[in-house]
């Protein structure tokens, strides 16, 4: 009986990894730039995901479940890390107010690579946990209602945040990200 439950847990985990494995990899990369930390975070996420399937009741979609677990682990990870590094995280509103400069300056200094995705990663790294979650789920192609289901943020707020994200992305990454930064 216990073996059967464990096998089911293993099967559900394998299924989730087959469907959302690449998205989990991107999520880990967005939270941790260094390869070693990313690997640790990815392992933490996979382990939590496997454990979570012991209690999966099907009351929400598999995608919502997987993203909730992954983001909750990643939030703890980033909060623990920030406590050590004591760096301030900012919101989408602050980035918009500064015309993207706060994130752009840091990205310029630390990355100095002209790749759109690398600059996007640098921008995401500066965001507070809630805004980071919204932008990552938006980039994964989720709509406001689904993002709200994962994060718990009201869909009205998510819609406002997505509007800001679009404006920031259009401003900072137009023409393949090669425009001169202000």
């Amino acid at each position, binding site marked *: 009986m216990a073996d059967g439950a464990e096998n089911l847990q293993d099967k559900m985990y394998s299924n989730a990894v087959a469907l959302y494995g690449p998205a989990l990899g991107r999520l880990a990369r967005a939270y941790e730039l260094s390869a070693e930390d990313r690997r640790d975070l990815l392992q933490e996420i*996979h382990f939590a995901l496997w454990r979570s399937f012991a*209690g999966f009741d099907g009351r929400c979609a598999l995608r919502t479940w997987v993203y909730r677990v992954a983001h*909750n682990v990643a939030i703890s990870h980033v909060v623990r890390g920030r406590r050590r590094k004591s760096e301030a995280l900012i919101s989408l509103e602050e980035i918009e107010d500064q015309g993207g400069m706060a994130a752009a300056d840091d990205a310029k200094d630390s990355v100095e690579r002209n790749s759109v995705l690398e600059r996007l990663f640098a921008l995401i790294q500066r965001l507070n946990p809630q805004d980071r979650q919204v932008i990552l789920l938006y980039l994964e192609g989720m709509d406001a209602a689904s993002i709200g289901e994962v994060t718990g943020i009201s869909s009205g707020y998510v819609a406002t945040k997505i509007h800001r994200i679009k404006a920031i992305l259009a401003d900072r990454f137009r023409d393949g990200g090669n425009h001169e930064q202000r």
Partner: protein
Amino acid sequence: MSSDNSSKELCQAWQSQPHSPFQMSSEALRKSMKKLSRTLLIRDGTVWMIGLFEAGWFTWMLIALPEMFIKAAACLIILGMGFMVGQTWLDQRRRRIARIMAEASGGVDSIQFFRSELERQREFHRGLPFWSRLFALLPGLLTFGISAIVFYPWPGNLVGCAVTAVTLLTVPLAIRLNRKRSRMYQCQIDRLDALRRPPV
């Protein structure tokens, strides 16, 4: 280019990133599970060790110290310290286990997950847990300070004066700092609650 088009392109670029497949094997997952259980067991053992150490110290004080009041004060201080250490340790353990459990539950959305963590931290700094920790040390320190003032001649009673003064000054400071902390956590909770409501 419109913001819709450019963000769609970015979403596509994001989703088509090259990736190296990653999956933990059943053996690795079960090994990690055993390691987690062992870690929690070791932490349980630590509180027993602290308890044993406290009991040993308490017994030694009772036997070795000659003055009755100082002996009683030492006992009270040790008991108070034991209580404080235990409370802090238990709180941290509860927090860690709750986090580990919540992380592995897709039934909890991120705001709920984050909020319950903040609530636990807020409760540590206010209410019964805070007051019980604060008053656990007071009887011992005050008994020690006052009995040293009363029973020891000058300048021996200086230690008693210092202990009493520091204790009485520390109490309002501790209350103030803990209130500030709990207010800070409450502000963070309020900000999270605001995200649950539709924007005004």
